[in-house]
């Protein structure tokens, strides 16, 4: 291995950790198979980690032209790379579970609390209306209420 040259595995691995984190939010989140469990991102992180480890070995090799500087740079870049991976795993597997228990939410068999809210045109719409107004020309069988976080 020619260790005197540019330590490309380290830098490519480092950039890949960032690209992988962003790819979840900009690409993989759109597909339920890669959203619900981020296996695509974990695979990419694995590739990045292998590159960074190769980069560490290269950066710590004694034949480097500036061994001291190389060790410092390698350590910082490797720490940042693993930090990015750790942050992603923390956000998706731990922080994303910090949700209220919602023990008082309506359960199967209970009545759904009535409401009346404005739609996008500012018109008041009640649950009763939603349950009775026709869908495709006939009365709906069910209304699917989807509560979501919002704030776009």
């Amino acid at each position: 291995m020619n260790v005197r040259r540019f330590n490309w595995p380290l830098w490519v691995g480092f950039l890949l950790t960032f690209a992988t984190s962003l790819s979840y939010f900009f690409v993989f989140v759109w597909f339920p198979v890669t959203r619900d469990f981020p296996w695509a991102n974990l695979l990419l992180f694995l590739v990045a980690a292998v590159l960074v480890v190769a980069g560490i070995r290269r950066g710590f090799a004694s034949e480097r032209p500036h061994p001291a500087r190389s060790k410092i740079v390698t350590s910082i870049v490797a720490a940042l790379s693993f930090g990015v991976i750790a942050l992603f795993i923390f956000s998706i597997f731990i922080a994303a579970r910090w949700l209220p228990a919602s023990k008082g939410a309506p359960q199967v068999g209970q009545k759904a609390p009535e409401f009346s809210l404005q739609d996008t045109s500012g018109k008041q719409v009640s649950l009763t209306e939603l349950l009775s107004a026709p869908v495709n020309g006939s009365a709906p069988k069910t209304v699917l209420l989807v509560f979501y976080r919002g704030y776009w």
Partner: protein
Amino acid sequence: MCNSELRSIEKNLDKLRAAGIRPVAISIDTPEESRKLSQQMGYTFTILSDSNAEVIKRYDLVHAGAGENGRDIARPAEFLVDTSGTVRWVNLTENYTVRARPEQILNAANSLK
């Protein structure tokens, strides 16, 4: 995440409607914000605005302080309500990256008598 869920509803709207399901999305966004979102994403189902989180409170779905500037928002949740107003299926996710999929909703709706 939420937009991903709403998009999958829009993509499966014909199937959902054919099964007699009317999807309705609810968040704290104002009607204008929701209108912009609908236009931008091409959503054609009903989106309701619960700006002061009153209905979200009534359904015990408040995620306190989790929104922008510490605003109370809704935790993700899905309910199927039949025409008598009775809840027939509930999905309260434990991880906000994991949402009900259209197939799951269709299965739940089709298993009702």
